């Protein structure tokens, strides 16, 4: 047996010796069995014969799509991306600290094998843990969807490289922390913190982008209101027409404050007041001025949000895109047509509440589509760039250090 084969065999033995490896494997099997026991009926779903009435709308045109949706949302998003990932990080956090413990590392470093090679063997042995687990799960799901849904979708197997990629983003941090601290607990905590920061940065970027889109939609609505108002002023409309344009409502309780609050919250308050009628004295010109003031403020807010988004975007750019990487599976397996649909435009919404909800929904969908359009090479490339830097740093520390 060569040294390479011996190290591979050792990686398998090490992994196999961990109880969590078995736990993850058993849970995966249970999930697949449950997955196989679920079927779609005209009224809803049936789990091992127990029926439940559910309305899935028109998203689930075929049983295959139903299974794919289950696979993506539960199998990948819930199990592989979160639960199994946490268990995998816990299982593998000790690999480097144990390896570097006094009396252990000596046994390896005294061999005719370069330190770099040893480092990368240990690194990839952790990834091997995930590859094996995800492969078993994905292949089983692939077979279930194939047999039960009649759709042999090879895209399901994308979970193997992509979930492994996601794990590798985390594990590079874990390896660096393990090499630096030689403590399993420290490596685990640092990895979890890094995961939180990666996910947080991504969520923050999406939220700010969502706010930006929402603000733009609101600005467009103000523009159209101003345009209507201008048209009415130009054509000297009747009181009824003005009332139709801006529904009458007592202004005492709803008028915007004399000194308008600033910032995003202020903008939202102004929006609230803006959709309220302001026709105490029927002065359309005054309403128009107020609308224009709101529009100006909205534009200023938009500049602020855009700037904030630009900062967060570039802060997030070099970080691993944990959620986006997993989304690539969804892109491949579920076409955009099966994405959650936007709400219907409200027909009767005199106070504008439903419209705001509708606008938020539009903004959310827009952002989701934007993210979906981001190139896979950007998502994976920037993430791998981060991983490469961190792994190189860990390898450098490992190779230079005295033990």
């Amino acid at each position, binding site marked *: *047996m*060569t*040294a390479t*084969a*011996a*190290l591979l*065999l*050792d990686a398998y*033995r*090490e992994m*196999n*010796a961990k109880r969590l490896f078995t736990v993850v494997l058993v849970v995966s099997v249970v999930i697949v069995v449950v997955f196989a026991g679920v079927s779609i009926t005209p009224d809803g779903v049936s789990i091992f014969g127990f029926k439940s009435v559910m309305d899935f709308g028109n998203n689930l045109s075929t049983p295959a799509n139903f299974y794919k949706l289950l696979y993506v949302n539960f199998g990948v998003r819930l199990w592989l991306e979160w639960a199994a990932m946490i268990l995998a990080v816990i299982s593998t956090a000790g690999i480097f600290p144990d390896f570097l*413990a*006094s*009396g*252990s*590392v*000596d*046994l*390896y*470093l*005294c*061999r*005719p*094998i*370069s330190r770099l090679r040893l480092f990368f063997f240990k690194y990839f042995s952790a990834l091997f843990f995930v590859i094996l687990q995800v492969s078993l799960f994905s292949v089983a799901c692939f077979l279930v969807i194939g047999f039960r849904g009649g759709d042999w979708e090879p895209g399901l197997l994308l979970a193997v490289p992509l979930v492994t990629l996601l794990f590798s983003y985390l594990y590079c941090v874990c390896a660096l922390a393990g090499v630096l601290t030689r403590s399993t607990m420290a490596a685990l905590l640092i990895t979890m913190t890094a995961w939180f920061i990666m996910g947080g940065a991504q969520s923050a970027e999406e939220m700010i982008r969502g706010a930006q889109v929402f603000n733009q939609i609101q600005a467009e609505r103000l523009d159209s209101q101003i345009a209507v108002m201008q048209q009415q002023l130009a054509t000297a409309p009747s009181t009824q027409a003005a009332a139709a344009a801006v529904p009458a409502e007592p202004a005492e309780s709803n008028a915007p404050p004399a000194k308008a609050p600033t910032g995003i919250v202020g903008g939202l308050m102004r929006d609230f007041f803006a959709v309220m009628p302001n026709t105490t004295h029927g002065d359309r010109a005054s309403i128009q001025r107020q609308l224009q003031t709101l529009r100006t403020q909205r534009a200023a807010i938009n500049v602020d949000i855009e700037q904030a988004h630009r900062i967060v975007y570039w802060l997030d750019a070099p970080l691993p895109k944990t959620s986006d990487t997993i989304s690539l599976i969804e892109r491949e397996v579920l076409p955009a047509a099966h994405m959650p649909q936007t709400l219907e435009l409200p027909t009767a919404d005199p106070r504008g509440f439903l419209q705001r909800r509708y606008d938020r929904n539009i903004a959310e969908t827009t952002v989701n589509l934007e993210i979906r359009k981001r190139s896979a090479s950007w998502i994976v490339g920037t993430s791998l760039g981060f991983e490469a830097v961190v792994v190189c740093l860990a390898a450098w520390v490992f190779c*230079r250090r*005295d*033990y």
Partner: protein
Amino acid sequence: MNIATVAAEGRLDYNEKFVNTDSPAIDLRNVSKIYRKRIHALRDVSLRVNRGEIFGLLGPNGAGKSTLVKIMMTVVKPTAAAGMILGKPVGHKPTLAKVGYLPENHRFPRYLTGKQAIEFFASLSGAASLGRRGKADELLETVGMSQWGDTKVSQYSKGMLQRVGIAAAMAADPDLIVLDEPTDGVDPFGRRDIRDLLLRMRTEGKTVFINSHLLSELEMVCDRIAVLVKGQVAVQGTMHELTSRRRFYLFELLESPDLPAKLVSALPGAFPGGVNGSINGGICRGEWKSVRGATWCEFDGSTLRVGVSEPTEAQEILDSIRRAGLILKRMTPVRPTLEELFIEAVGEGGKP
């Protein structure tokens, strides 16, 4: 000195039969290690270990022994180092395929059995797979662990771990075996087995480098030793070289009133100024003039100690004693223990 002579002394001494001094197994020169730019662990250490000998490295805690061993095994990077190991520069990785190493307090992966550990680390050393399984069994038997080979190392005692560790160090059939505290935690039977194993390795032409605190253990097997004190080699040489200066013969004489006078006449020059006055003081020390090789002489009551190391020299003294009419009760060759050498080399200042 032949093997029979040294065996009579209760130990095996330097055995040139197995030693090749032309091409040293280890030839370190000016090895230095400074930690964090201020802690001098090693200062210009130079060592030479001949092929086929058992070499012992001694030193108090913190002397730099482990650092030196780790530098040889590329576990620690030296600040400066020259010299060769098995004919290749220190740090040459491929050479390590011919070196077996047992680290101090080694920790095998807990999920491996003893046999798996031997096979795994032999594979890492690049040992050919052919017949290695059989060799693992053979090695386990050699170290007395054949019935525990399929047990996980996590269930081993310290002594069992040491035995398997030595087997793993021997697995790739190395030319040089470096053992750091090999008998640590091993019971007396195990120690004896390990000593026998080391001697057997020597007869097979292998070089053994031992780093140990157990001076009595080293004394029984080492051909040459070095004592490291505060990162520097204080003493280095064969056991014979190091002990010859302090070897002496002990003559126990039958007491008689005229014993001192007869002794003075028997050993002229041994007691300058005579011995009468000095006997009351307990010890008479003087420069030995009449017998070549003797450097000192002590007389205490009826006991005479003479600083000669060779039997031929002692024979001359014996002849003189007999000629003077003194009756010899017992004659014993005495050599200092390694512990005495060690303490002398380290001194009080060498304490950690």
